[in-house]
């Protein structure tokens, strides 16, 4: 912990007077506040809560896969009746809601909602978002959405094996469009769709807000190519959201209408479902898949681009070295986003899509590895020749790179259509997306929590506990998800409540049990994270304005920043990655430091009286 440890402590003392401020930010959390920092923290705490909910649902899934049809402890007693046994309907509901919670209430809101909100104004030197009220709404609308999801779990027969949406998070019709097709999903599916629409509205509000803020409210001197990668990531994510999400919202309305008003966009006529009368209709089910993936493929990049941005910033700071290839990094981010719009069909290779489309989508999908490759190599290049500090932030960032490579490479297998014929809808897919979603994004988020925590609360998080959390998460994660590749190759289909019905899968049971064990380790490791977050509020080492000796604008504001963020309006003179400049004494060069400064001042900290 060379240079960081050396200087970080020095600014501690000046800010002990901020104690009052620090709590003020937190105290606002349960209430309506339009301050972007409060909203960011609200989002962060909510998503961590939801991570536990989604994780508990995942553990339910894992239970059934390793101890099929045995009574489930804890969760079983709570939810499933029939003596705690997981019924097939309940299993379907478990993985549907697991994915829903993780994607719509954890990953998307933690990136765009929590870090987007907290960081965008601070990193561009603005005092708040462009539309603070809209911003607050975009948080509070999460709760009705969460309520809808909860309602979708308890509707119909109440908490029970027959309740809940039963069509997976992809919600393919006709299963999702015809109530008779999934007995018990009656209103549940409707509530689910309503919930998705509401999170959609929330993200849409957020994205318009972020775009406006980033375009129009940058501090003087902060040109586009001086923006930190985090901001680029958030900006491009917002663009993706803005242009892809409305399509899903529209499709969601169509599906809702199919269920409720008797329309038939996704229901062909003449289907005999569950011995009911043949359907009256005329629509096409594939239309939903196209519209859904037109959003949800860009959405997977929504779930990773901000993390890529944050990792770039953290890596550069932790290695005390400029980001390797800043412009290629920006362009590749944009290229991923652009290509991301034209690859959605790779989820539909074997869905009866026109084969010519299949080929087109294969080529575009494989080519998306190119900008990703540029990013990976540039991250490695950033560490190369740097002076890394092996702290929790850095470890999580390295894990991000390492895991993203695995998840990305498995993406190539699936992008190759002939191979996808075999591995589609097997656990290979499940492995792939957990590697990118948890392995990459969540580790990035863990790092980001550690990194910006001092800015949020004015205190450091514990390094020791952080490392333990990292170690257990990493080991548990790989223990859970690496074997899924092998299950996939062995042909184990996903969304199976009982794969062992098939002789050729029987011998995979022990492996599955090992994975469940690892999942428990990983799951319980998250308690360490939560403990670390809570305890550090009270006992963490106090941090000054710039605990990591970083260059970004956010570090020139007090920790935690008061309302309006900056006590001195920042003016930007350079990019955010001028670490270890050979002509300077200190190994960092804040963006706001005027170039004509007669003597390099190591610690730029004018100690203004707190407001």
């Amino acid at each position, binding site marked *: 912990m060379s240079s960081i440890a050396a200087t970080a402590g020095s600014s501690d003392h000046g800010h002990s007077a901020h104690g009052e401020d620090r709590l003020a930010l937190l105290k606002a959390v349960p209430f309506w506040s339009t301050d972007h920092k409060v909203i960011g923290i609200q989002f962060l705490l909510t998503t961590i809560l939801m991570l536990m909910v989604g994780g508990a649902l995942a553990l339910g899934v894992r239970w059934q896969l390793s101890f099929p049809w045995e009574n489930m402890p804890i969760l079983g007693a709570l939810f499933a009746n029939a003596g705690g046994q997981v019924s097939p309907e309940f299993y379907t509901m478990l993985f549907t809601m697991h994915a829903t919670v993780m994607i719509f209430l954890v990953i998307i809101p933690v990136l765009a909602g929590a870090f987007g909100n907290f960081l965008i104004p601070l990193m561009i030197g603005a005092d708040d978002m462009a539309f603070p009220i809209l911003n607050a709404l975009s948080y509070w609308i999460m709760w009705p959405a969460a309520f809808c999801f909860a309602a979708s779990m308890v509707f119909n027969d109440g908490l029970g094996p027959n309740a809940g949406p039963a069509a997976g998070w992809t919600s393919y019709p006709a299963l999702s469009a015809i109530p008779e097709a999934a007995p018990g999903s009656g209103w549940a599916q409707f509530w689910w769709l309503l919930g998705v629409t509401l999170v959609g509205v929330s993200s849409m509000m957020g994205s318009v807000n972020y775009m406006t803020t980033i375009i129009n409210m940058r501090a003087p001197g902060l040109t586009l190519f001086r923006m930190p990668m985090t901001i680029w990531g958030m900006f491009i994510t917002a663009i993706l959201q803005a242009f892809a999400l409305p399509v899903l919202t529209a499709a969601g309305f169509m599906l809702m209408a199919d269920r409720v008003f008797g329309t038939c966009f996704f229901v062909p006529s003449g289907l005999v479902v569950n011995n009911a009368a043949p359907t009256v209709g005329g629509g096409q089910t594939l239309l939903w898949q196209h519209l859904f993936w037109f959003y949800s493929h860009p959405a997977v990049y929504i779930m990773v681009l901000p993390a890529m941005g944050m990792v770039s910033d953290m890596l550069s700071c932790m290695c005390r070295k400029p980001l390797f290839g800043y412009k290629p990094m920006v362009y590749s981010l944009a290229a991923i986003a652009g290509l991301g719009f*034209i690859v959605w069909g790779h989820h539909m290779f074997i869905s009866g899509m026109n084969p010519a489309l299949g080929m087109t989508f294969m080529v575009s999908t494989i080519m998306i590895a190119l900008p990703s490759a540029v990013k990976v190599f540039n991250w490695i290049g950033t560490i190369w020749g740097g002076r890394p500090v092996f702290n929790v932030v850095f470890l999580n960032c390295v894990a991000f790179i390492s895991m993203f490579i695995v998840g990305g490479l498995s993406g190539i297998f699936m992008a190759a259509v002939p191979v996808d014929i075999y591995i589609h809808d097997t656990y290979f897919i499940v492995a792939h997306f957990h590697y990118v979603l948890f392995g990459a994004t969540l580790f990035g988020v863990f790092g980001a929590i550690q990194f910006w925590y001092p800015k949020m609360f004015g205190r450091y998080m514990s390094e020791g506990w952080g490392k333990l959390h990292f170690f257990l998460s990493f080991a548990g994660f790989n223990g859970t998800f690496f074997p899924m590749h092998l299950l996939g190759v062995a042909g184990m289909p996903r969304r199976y409540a009982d794969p062992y019905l098939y002789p050729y899968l029987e011998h995979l049971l022990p492996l599955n049990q090992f994975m469940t064990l690892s999942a428990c380790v990983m799951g319980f490791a998250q308690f360490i994270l939560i403990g670390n977050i809570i305890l550090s509020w009270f006992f963490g080492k106090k941090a000054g304005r710039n605990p990591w000796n970083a260059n970004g604008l956010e570090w020139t504001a007090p920790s935690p920043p008061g309302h309006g963020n900056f006590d001195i309006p920042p003016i930007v003179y350079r990019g955010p990655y001028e670490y270890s400049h050979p002509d300077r004494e200190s190994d960092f060069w804040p963006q706001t430091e005027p170039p004509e400064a007669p003597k390099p001042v190591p610690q730029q900290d004018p100690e203004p009286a707190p407001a």
Partner: protein
Amino acid sequence: MDHAHDDSHPHVNYFGVFIALCICTAISVAFDLIEISPILLVGLVLAIALAKALFVMTYFMHLKFEGRWKFVVLAPTAVLAVGLMIALAPDMAMHYYTMDTPQSKMVVVTHGGDGHHSEEGDEGHHAEEEHASPSSSH
């Protein structure tokens, strides 16, 4: 309505634009009344719609007087909007595989209606008749 000629910052003859839009609408409706080949009609009517849209955007929405950012905002949506439809077409509009629905097995004969505008006529739907080849699917 001549008071529209007030001069404000961008000098636009809003009333003129308005008249142009009305004329376009009238032409569209006129196409409906005259005999004209369907393909020509589709082309013309869509062209007119596009023209109207451009009128509204350039003058009423003041895009003519905005900076280059307008392209940055509008070009991606335009490309995506058209692209989405083009990408949907091979699957949804043309069918690579045989359809297997009752409708797709019927032969629909339309005895083209005699006139256009007997609005909400007294009888029910009367012009179209289908000769469904006896739906033998079930």
